[in-house]
């Protein structure tokens, strides 16, 4: 059976850690990291990467456009 | 080619000159005594001929900001109003100067302060020459004294506005705006094409960001105080260049004069007769008429003082505004007095003559 899988790349240094991407994810993939970036923000990351479906909801919500989304279909 | 000559009202000729000099737009709001400017434009419908836009705004505040918008795109744009309306526009002057935008503003002055009167006055001299709003800036200010100059100065004002990227004011008054005189009209000049605007104002005008250039931003905002200071210094350098290159004035019988009347606009016309009256009575009196109020003909007046003029009378339709610039120019070398009427009252040549006698000659 085919499976669609996604992944995101967060531009960590541009992320302000606002967290609006976290509840927008229908697959509960995202969380704010315990680590901070150069500005001191707890940046967004994939806490549960296997669940990502590449829907781009997080990227659409991100006010700072720091999320790039990829998706691939595996047969 | 034979020039077109007509008998026209000052306000009407402003409209005619705006069209003929190839202006792209006029935005205004009715106010006495200059309403004929927009009335004439609406009657002439230049959008059908040259393509010039004419729009009646909801207020002078809106009108000057429409000017700001159109000027942002490199268009030749003007507005006109009278004193209370010009006060409403003054915020816009500061933004236009701060964003270095060219435009032409006409003030057909009436008596103030407040709503004041609808009769002619020169009581907006300070506002027109000292910036007239917040921040370190100046308008370049031209003062016509005839209907012909109302026509000619529209052309000159646009030239100065684009040469220095600064708003230019034509400071007229209800006398010049309402009276009719013979005027020689210039031939119609074409409006600039889009390609000409892009070529001429390629460094700053909002013509649409293309791949070959960075985006253009028209703004007067700066958060860094040192950058703002550097910008202000650049503006001041520009105004110094204006002071150096653009001073205009006219003299009447000043060569041998012991006493000098300084007057601009409609007041200067009246004072020409005062000079003749004084000459008939045996007094050597001359007149200097500043045509540019900013830059002020400081040097010319200083030279008259240095050559031994015994006294200066600044005759203005106000309670003493230009006299401050005359005093600065004379710098204590001779007495400088003011004579004026205000509130819409206009002095006669003999009133000025009497003032000259009592305040200067027989003092």
């Amino acid at each position: 059976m085919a499976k669609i899988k996604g992944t995101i790349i967060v531009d960590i240094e541009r992320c302000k850690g606002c967290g609006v991407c976290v509840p927008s994810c229908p697959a509960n993939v995202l969380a704010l990291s315990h680590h901070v970036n150069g500005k001191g923000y707890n940046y967004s990351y994939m806490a549960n990467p296997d669940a990502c479906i590449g829907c781009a909801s997080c990227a659409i919500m991100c006010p700072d456009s720091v999320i790039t989304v990829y998706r691939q279909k595996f047969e | 080619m034979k020039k077109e000559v007509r008998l026209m009202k000052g306000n009407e000729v402003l409209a005619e000159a705006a069209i003929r000099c190839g202006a792209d737009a006029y935005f205004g709001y009715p106010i006495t005594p200059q309403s004929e400017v927009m009335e004439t434009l609406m009657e002439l419908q230049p959008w059908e001929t040259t393509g010039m836009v004419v729009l009646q705004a909801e207020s002078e505040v809106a009108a000057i900001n429409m000017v700001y918008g159109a000027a942002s795109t490199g268009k030749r744009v003007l507005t006109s109003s009278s004193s209370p309306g010009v006060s409403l526009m003054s915020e816009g002057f500061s933004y236009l100067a701060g964003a270095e935008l060219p435009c032409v503003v006409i003030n057909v002055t009436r008596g103030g302060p407040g709503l004041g009167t609808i009769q002619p006055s020169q009581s907006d001299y300070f506002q027109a020459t000292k910036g007239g709003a917040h921040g370190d800036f100046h308008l370049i200010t031209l003062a016509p004294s005839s209907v012909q100059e109302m026509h000619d100065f529209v052309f000159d004002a646009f030239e100065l506005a684009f040469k220095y990227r600064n708003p230019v004011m034509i400071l007229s008054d209800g006398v010049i705006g309402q009276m009719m005189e013979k005027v020689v009209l210039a031939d119609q000049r074409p409006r600039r094409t889009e390609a000409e605007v892009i070529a001429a104002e390629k460094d700053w005008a909002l013509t649409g960001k293309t791949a070959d250039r960075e985006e253009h931003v028209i703004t007067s905002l700066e958060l860094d105080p040192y950058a703002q200071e550097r910008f202000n210094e650049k503006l001041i350098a520009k105004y110094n260049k204006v002071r150096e290159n653009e001073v205009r004035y006219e003299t009447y019988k000043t060569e041998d004069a012991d006493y000098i009347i300084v007057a601009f606009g409609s007041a200067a016309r009246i004072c020409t007769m005062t000079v003749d009256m004084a000459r008939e009575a045996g007094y050597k009196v001359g007149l200097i008429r500043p045509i540019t109020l900013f830059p002020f003909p400081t040097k010319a007046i200083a030279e008259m003082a240095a050559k031994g003029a015994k006294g200066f009378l600044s005759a203005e339709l106000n309670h003493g505004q230009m006299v401050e610039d005359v005093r600065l120019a004379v710098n204590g070398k001779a007495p400088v007095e003011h004579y004026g009427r205000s509130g819409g009252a206009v002095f006669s040549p003999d009133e000025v003559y009497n003032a000259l006698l009592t305040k200067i000659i027989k003092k």
Partner: protein
Amino acid sequence: MAELEVQIKEENLVYRKSPLLTDKIMHYCPGCSHGTVHKLVAEVIDELGIQEKTIGVSPVGCSVFAYNYLHIDWSQAAHGRACAVATGIKRTNPDKMVFTYQGDGDLAAIGTAETIHACNRGENIAVIFINNAIYGMTGGQMAPTTLIGMKTATSPYGRDPKIHGFPYKIADIVSQLSGTCYVTRQSVHTPAAVRKTKAAIKKAFENAMAGKGLSFVEVVSTCNSGWKMSPVDANKWMEENLVPFYPLGDIKG
């Protein structure tokens, strides 16, 4: 299936930052709605292929610096005067796509006259109105759209209509005017809402280019710093409090 790894290559790309956005880091607070709406404007301009035709007018307020973030030509207007500035641009450049981007203080307080009259003249421009019911830039003072009871720096005990007057719905007012062709109220607090707002902005820009009159897109937004809550809580608070008073959806057209 954990061994399946998505390859990072162009053909797998679903979403990336619009090329119309500059690389400058936005000065907005974390979670601010402005960033999201800026992004939508950039995407719409890119998708319509109108970068060379578009001139934006930025206001006074937090979004005064909108001109730093999009690769288009911008004019920055005096406080409240964006619609007049846009009128001047559009009337003298009828082939350009002209839009204003304004907050509630700029558009609905100091600029009410310019807004109403541009709408009433039916200027062929698009107006994007960010309504977060507060003055963000000056430090969280009361806006004309601040709700009754809402605490701000200038209504510290809550907005009391006896002292401060009532909030008003300017989108409803401009929808009554003959010159507006499209008036809508949207939000950007969920992915679905963001998609709808983008469609609204696109429609507004298309209307402006087609000369149909003025399109007015209100975006009910958050100001989490001004409201003194987290960005996620602000989205919730907005849905529970602002949206009932400023209901979402098309009002006209």
